[in-house]
């Protein structure tokens, strides 16, 4: 795959792992919201980029004597040297990050990858998040600073509490109907696009959701950008582990993604984290549990 154009939405990362002090750790329903002070990193990562995170101390020795590799997380917000990450504890890596306390240290590399591109001219942005995939849409909403439509799907009311992190009100669907509509976020998207197809869709979520978004947008001729997840060891193109199949062959999500144009994909049903068996629903634009 040829190098991406120079205009790609990418803020360069310092070429080494660094540490950031953990500020607040809050519960947001089923999720954890971690704020870290990243004084040595760039102040303006692009929405949709991601960071490779690990706990600076005691990384290893959890379940299955893991974690060993860092885990990829899109930042939820980046303001004045403060990075915020939204995560769900679903494996030895995310569990260790989630148990960090104020004053402890996070090791990180980033920002990495390419983020969201601007909406196609003459279209309104429609943000579609599934579960933890809401994370990279928060900073995107901040940046678009307009009346972007936000559609969110969650498993349950506890997960849906993350909707409160968005400005304004988001349309909600839950699997069990305990918050918002009972059903899928793609039902909301179909209604939204049916009413007015002049939209650019920005979506992040589990593989089945992304594939449903891709297929719907292809059917309606709507431009879509998808933030995908795939098992990733390094985050900067070294390991070749995170490839996903596209119409141009395999591409590395870490350097050519995680945000890809939906037109590049025959299917968005891709990606699994190393050392885990699926755990669908836990997506942060990067990879790993």
């Amino acid at each position, binding site marked *: 795959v040829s190098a991406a154009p120079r205009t790609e939405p990418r803020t360069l990362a310092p070429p080494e792992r660094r540490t950031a002090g953990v500020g607040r750790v809050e519960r947001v329903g089923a999720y954890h919201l971690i704020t870290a002070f990243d004084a040595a990193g760039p102040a303006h990562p692009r929405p949709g980029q991601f960071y490779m995170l690990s706990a600076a101390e005691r990384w290893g020795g959890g379940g299955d004597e893991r974690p060993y590799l860092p885990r990829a997380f899109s930042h939820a917000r980046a303001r004045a040297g403060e990075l915020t990450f939204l995560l769900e504890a679903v494996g030895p890596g995310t569990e260790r990050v989630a148990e960090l306390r104020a004053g402890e240290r996070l090791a990180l590399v980033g920002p990495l990858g390419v983020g969201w591109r601007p909406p196609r001219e003459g279209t309104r942005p429609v943000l579609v998040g599934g579960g933890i995939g809401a994370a990279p849409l928060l900073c995107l909403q901040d940046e678009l600073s307009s009346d972007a439509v936000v559609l969110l799907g969650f498993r349950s009311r506890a997960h849906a509490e993350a909707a409160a992190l968005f400005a304004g009100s988001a349309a909600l669907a839950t699997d069990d109907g305990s918050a918002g509509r009972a059903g899928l976020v793609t039902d909301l998207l179909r209604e939204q696009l049916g009413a007015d197809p002049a939209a650019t869709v920005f979506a992040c979520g589990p593989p089945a959701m992304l594939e449903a978004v891709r297929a719907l947008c292809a059917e309606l001729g709507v431009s879509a950008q998808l933030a995908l997840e795939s098992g990733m060891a390094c985050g900067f193109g070294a*390991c070749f582990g995170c490839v996903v199949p596209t119409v141009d062959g395999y591409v590395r999500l870490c350097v050519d993604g995680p945000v890809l144009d939906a037109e590049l994909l025959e299917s968005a049903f891709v990606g699994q984290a190393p050392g885990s068996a699926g755990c669908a629903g836990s997506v942060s634009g990067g990879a790993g549990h």
Partner: protein
Amino acid sequence: LSAIELCGVPLAGPVLNGSGTFDAIAARRAFGEVLLERFPFHAFVSKTITLEPRQGNPPPRLWETAAGLINSIGLPNRGLEGFLASDLPELAELPVPLMVSVMGFSRDELATLVARVGDRDEVALIELNVSCPNVETGLVMGADPAETARAVERVRPLTGKPVIVKLTPNAAQPAAVARAAQEAGADAVALINTLKGMALDPRTARPWLGGRTGGVSGPAVRAIALEQVAAVARAVDIPVIGMGGVASGRHAADLLAAGAACVAVGTESFRDPAAGRRVAAELASLQLAGAAQIK
């Protein structure tokens, strides 16, 4: 760290990368030109190239183990012509000597690769990745001393550049393979490559990796690497490039003490892109402390 020579090629220090564990072209996209100012290695080893382009193995390609990683990447690369046209000019901009890793599925393929790569001024050293089956004999070249010797004998007259044989740890006696490589004219040997490994999908009990099996690397293989490097260093007179689980200056010092002339950092670079620089700095302070003690 003091400068050294590897097969006549001057290096500012002894820390290399393991082939396939650092993509300098992709890293430059992520980190920018500052990567060249703070380049992590004293020589750069390319990802292995083959005669024809390869897409690599179907995903999933990774599995995290206790203190390590199994990978099944499958040598994706642009092929010889694509490498020479697209990658080599970019790798030539790196601030350190370039070692190009090549793999052939027959001795003829290997000969073509060595001759064409060796012709290019940008290339200082050539590494033979012999961890693949010879499609004519079905034998893994690097698992057998005689097969390794035949491969080295075939390519030796085709280039004046140093030829380094990357040994596989999946051989009954790596030291015997190393000796055969030396006798056939290799200028150095490098070890260890990854150890063959496997993981099962816990939901289905079927192989997790798209390529079924993969190679284990990381701290999990460090003790095995140290023993194999020591055994090979005792068996040959040519330089040994030691690697396997190196994550600190202490680990590098251990491999040097076991007889290695250089060390390579591999999987640790996945965790920290500056791991090579950190290992070199830690090694330098260990050597300083050691020198002070002797005085």
